[in-house]
């Protein structure tokens, strides 16, 4: 049970939502899979909960090669990956990561926007979105702005959203075909947060071959390993180059110890997993 009083609203338009959100102690809600858990534990105690699920325009999903994939904030993870084959076909690493969020039941409610807005360092959908250069469309009564996902997070549970602003949609630009893998280590295989999550995406694998890496649960926010990417760009994937690449990925992290794993283990895996993924993708022969 939620041990305090709050009012619950389900506006059907954005303007109505902005109005209620301007009330003191108001918070937005989508699937509620983070919010309700936190309310139950009294880690957040909103006075007003504004459920955005009943706003039609937040349910839109569209894709074109020019505009990319646009995901309305209220689209559940299961809707996204089951109803839109384009996700799996064009953004395979994102698809894999979503499949690793919670369990099927969780994904019936959870949204990508909620995963981003919650701004946990462990958010599984974020590392692949970082590798795909995703942007967040933010709206408020005063207008809208586009924020690069890489600039969105400011710390654990913190982000650039100002009071009254909400996520409207996520835009994932389409550059070219991609391959890759999301490797998540967790204590159990479902319904667990990542001890570490590594997204390695190769944009245009048969052409310019741009290797991108981002990680969850190894820093105060999800991080992208730009230095490692710069290093490996245009290089042969040899034992020594991959080793250096993996070291640079590791150096982009600053893990801590928590209930899910130690700092040392995360640090080590931050180097093991990028190599591992390249090997499993068949791009590199070496065995650690």
């Amino acid at each position: 049970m939620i041990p305090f009083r709050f009012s619950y609203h389900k506006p059907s338009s954005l303007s109505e939502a902005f109005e209620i959100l301007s009330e003191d102690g108001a918070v937005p809600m989508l699937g509620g899979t983070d919010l309700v858990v936190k309310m139950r534990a009294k880690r957040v105690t909103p006075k007003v909960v504004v459920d955005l699920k009943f706003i039609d325009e937040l349910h839109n999903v569209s894709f074109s090669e020019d505009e990319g994939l646009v995901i309305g904030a209220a689209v559940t993870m299961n809707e996204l990956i089951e109803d839109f084959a384009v996700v799996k076909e064009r953004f395979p690493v994102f698809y894999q990561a979503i499949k690793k969020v919670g369990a099927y039941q969780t994904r019936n409610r959870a949204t990508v926007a909620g995963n981003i807005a919650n701004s946990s360092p462990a958010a599984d959908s974020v590392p692949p979105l970082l590798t795909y250069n995703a942007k967040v469309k933010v709206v408020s009564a005063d207008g809208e702005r586009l924020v690069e996902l890489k600039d969105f997070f400011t710390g654990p549970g913190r982000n650039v959203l100002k009071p009254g602003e909400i996520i409207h949609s996520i835009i994932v630009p389409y550059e070219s075909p991609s391959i890759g893998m999301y490797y998540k280590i967790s204590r159990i295989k479902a319904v667990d947060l990542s001890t570490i999550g590594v997204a390695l995406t190769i944009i245009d694998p048969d052409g310019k071959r741009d290797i991108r890496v981002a990680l969850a649960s190894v820093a105060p926010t999800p991080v992208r390993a730009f230095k490692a990417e710069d290093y490996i760009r245009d290089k042969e994937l040899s034992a020594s180059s991959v080793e250096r690449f993996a070291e640079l990925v590791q150096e982009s992290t600053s893990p801590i110890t928590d209930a899910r794993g130690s700092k040392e283990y995360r640090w080590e895996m931050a180097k093991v997993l990028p190599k591992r993924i390249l090997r499993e993708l068949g791009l590199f022969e070496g065995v650690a």
Partner: protein
Amino acid sequence: MREKYVGKPIPRVDAYEKVTGTAVYVTDMFFPRMLYGAVLRSPHPHAKIKKIDVSKAKALEGVAAVVTSKECPYRQGIYLVDRPIFATDRVRYVGEPVAAVAAESMEIAMKALELIEVEYEPLPAVFDPLEAMKGEVLIHPDLASYERLPIYNIEPEKNVFHHHKTRKGDVEKGFKEADYIIEGEYSLPQIYHAPLEPHGAIAFYDFNGNLTVWSSAQSPYTLRNLIAHAFKMSRHKVRVIAPYVGGGFGGKAGINMEGIVIALAMQVPGRHVKLIYSREEDIMATVVRQGMYAKVKAGVKKDGTLVAWEETMVFDGGAYAEYGTNVVRAAGYTTPGPYYVPNIKVDSYGVYTNHLVGGAFRGFGHGELHWAVERHMDKIAKTLGMDPLELRLKNVLRPGHTNAMGQKMHEHTGNVEACLKKAADLIGYGEKPEQPKDRVKRRGRGIAALVKAPAMPTNAASSVVIKFNEDASVTLQVSIQEIGQGFNTAITQMAADALHISPDKIKVVFPIDTDANPYEWQTVASRALWTVGNALYRAAEDALSQIKNIASQVLGVAPYNLEVEDDRVYIKYDPEVYIPLKDIVMGYTYPDGHAIGGPVIGRGSFVPERLTNLDPETGQGNAAAEWTFGAEAAEVEVDMETGEVKILKLVGVFDAGRVVNPMIAAGQIIGGMVQGMGPALFEQITYTDDGKPISISFTDYKIPTIADMPDEMIADFVETPEATSPFGVRGIAEHPMISVPPAIASAIYDAVGVDINDLPVTPEKILKALKEKHS
């Protein structure tokens, strides 16, 4: 026993209720004008309570009662009465109840908790049982004055609530005869039962001083007994009603949180008070499995023959002893498990710490003891260069041997050798598993044996009442709780065979009501089919003899010439001459109207035969009624880069005596093996350095999910009929969980050559060990 229904995979009698969601649990129950309870808990692992002020909470509108140790100054405990219902002068763990509130709504109750002011003075705390044994911090300074059963041996100055000793033969002499002396240390943390349904109870106190408690309880009668004892009431004034239990695993045995809601109800006679624990409270403030540290020294001959076994086990009992007293005892008298060793010295200590309260947990000390014993058997095999299975087969208990408490093994005691061989066969022991192409992943297989007897008082009693109805159908009254194990189905099958009637004609009375159902000690210890089977057999004999006596008068033949079958009583040598059963079971009425006999009610009761307490200095005696042997095997795949372990296959084989329902028994084994996977690989209660529990929700306390299941699980049986049961049965309920961790650890060694001796076997531990091995 003639078998027609025993041995058949009959569907569960509670299946429809459970799958349609109509089965009633305590949380589903509502009463008019019911109040809601909530509990204020200690934030400190060890502190003095200087002051409690409840005045503001009492003044809040909608609050009906506030209770602290002032109103309820009672202690509870099954074997050692050490646990106050509300902390009195001090708190001893984070989560200990300090006060409770009953209010018109949950919301008001929660609000009232915030208004209670408690002043604490933190005391030095101790979390490591080895440290606690030094006695620098005394958690129960008054331990010596607590009421306890005399078979428990306290050492108050060391925080020890029970020290069990086994002294068989002469270990020193054994070590002299040994070619090798092999030592090892093994440990495991506290773990949580994680039943689907958290603890919950409703209490109602009437104006005549009668108390009724609805509780999710494994032991309705023992609960009644412990309530009456704690609250100093006459047994007949206390009534316990126990609807379905959504998983117990030992955590709902005896008395738990009921005292709190009873104390509230006593303040508001005439009103029901309901208290359902949240998941956090269920983890923090009921009981968990004790942690354990063990040190083993074994003497072995060159050929692998065990000649001496010396072991010290130290259990982290947490703040209160609970069933832990008897867990420590059972682990003490069973070590070294299923092996014959002529010279044994075991010291098993239960130690208080400021951790969460340890209690009964499926396996009752045997998961702990077998972790040490089976890991050590692997170490011995490695030292001798012997195959681990061969070492085990060489040393298993066989007919003629004596076990650690000096009991003689017979042909009918059970066959661990057959279990080991069958499990080895089913896992493909001996052949090398096919290795994955990816060279960082290696597969291996491991095997471990086990044994467990019911850990119970020598006089743990059972009874059964069989009531015939007008149409010769039967209602069966027993007080074993259906906690998911399938008891109601299995006992129906056994009653059908004992009474020679169809199982469709039998109903097991449910829920259990201590005002109506006959006495039963508890639903624990894997003993129900064995003990109730005995009582049932007697009750059936009683009922059949009443039927035959009446029929003998009507038909003019001796009772021994009569037979009951389905719906009739007939003359054995002339089966065409019979009386319909329905014409007898309410008494027989002659055509002229006069009647004889009366309603048939069969009565059977049972206490274990010839059990004795153990000698306090040597641990020798006859404390175990029947032993169930088993063997479990695992195949795993270890990722040498990440340390991740995938369990590919699990096998469990148990000497069940007689399998009453193969479908339910297999389910029990598979469930138990899965429950063993968690502690093997990831389950543990974790704490901050200053003793605050971290893993008190499912975010941080992980149990296996469907995604973690092995590709294959096999449940199989050996059937050596149990001579002390008319049905030949013995328990298998707890056993499947016991040796899964050592089997998995053994398979990990087989795969990648590292031994982890401290549970759980996490990826981090494996990687660390791999590094140490390669450096």
